[in-house]
């Protein structure tokens, strides 16, 4: 299962497993991942966890900003729609940094292969 690792000064201080179908991130205690910090909106962003429609056994993780005040960034680019997360992406929620880790993704990396019928 993929996870979001909370980074402080480049060190992992907490790891949240992304257990679907939807992981909510925000300052409010209702959220699956609560970040009690001023730059984070009450309901800041969410991650949809969905099986890939074409590749059996692959799970896709899509992050969406929920009209937060300070924005959601993937690799320093502010997202304005739903975006798929890839292994090692750096996600910023307000001023809080996370690393998206999806170890299963590595097994497919650069392996040219064919879906057998």
């Amino acid at each position: 299962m993929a996870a979001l690792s909370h980074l402080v000064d480049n060190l992992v201080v907490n790891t949240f497993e992304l257990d679907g179908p939807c992981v909510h991130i925000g300052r409010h205690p209702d959220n699956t991942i609560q970040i009690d910090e001023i730059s984070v909106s009450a309901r800041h962003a969410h991650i949809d966890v969905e099986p890939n429609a074409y590749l059996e056994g692959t799970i896709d993780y899509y992050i969406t900003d929920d009209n937060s005040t300070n924005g959601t960034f993937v690799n320093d680019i502010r997202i304005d729609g739903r975006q798929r997360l890839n292994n090692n992406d750096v996600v910023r929620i307000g001023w809080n940094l996370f690393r998206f880790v999806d170890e299963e993704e590595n097994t497919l990396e650069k392996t040219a292969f064919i879906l057998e019928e």
Partner: protein
Amino acid sequence: MTLIATGLTDIGTRRVSNQDAIAWHVCPDSTRALGIVADGMGGYKGGEIASQVAVNVITQVLVPLINQPPVDDAAQVRAIRDAVNEANEQIQALREEDPVLGNMGTTIVLVWIQGSDALVAHIGDSRCYHLSGDQLDLKTRDDTVVQNMIDDGSISEAEAPRMPFRNVLTQALGSNEAAEPSLCRLQLARGDRLLLCSDGLTEAVPEADWPGLIPARVPLREQANTLINTSLENQAADNVSVVLILKES
């Protein structure tokens, strides 16, 4: 009416074998032509064999037809389907004979031109582009998981190069019971070029650079050279292949 064709393939800078295979043929009066690019996969040995078998079989079936007077549209489609099916069967037979080749397969993109009419067929992610002046148009749709996800809106085209499974094909010659090439027809004006390539080229040199790199006034062979050399300068990680066909007059 004159068609000119050329092609080049290179191992690239990081691979230990060239698993691409290419072929081209222009009939004696230069009014009909065939071009093929295949990109094999399935291990060091299998990839080379699959692409070479595909190119050999398809060439053997189609070249005699291209040397004859033009055939009608239906016969052309039938002949391409027969050639691709024959290649599929031969690759599958080899897979069954030798376990080392058990998962080999290949992409294929081919074009058969009769005068101004071009028929493009493809399976996998090898591509055909139409170059008209500086205008570059992709005429094939990749048979890949990533292309499916772009088409259904799951990801944007900009996200595609970062996708972990961007090389996963949904169809390849030799790996499916039935080979079902996608077909597309187009018209060539005087001076137009068709470019067939493996994904080694698209990954190493941005498409937007191509028209500037290969201006139409340069001899066709030199254009192919430039594309390959630019790929190598950009440290092409994969094998790189191009076949270019020009409708000169």
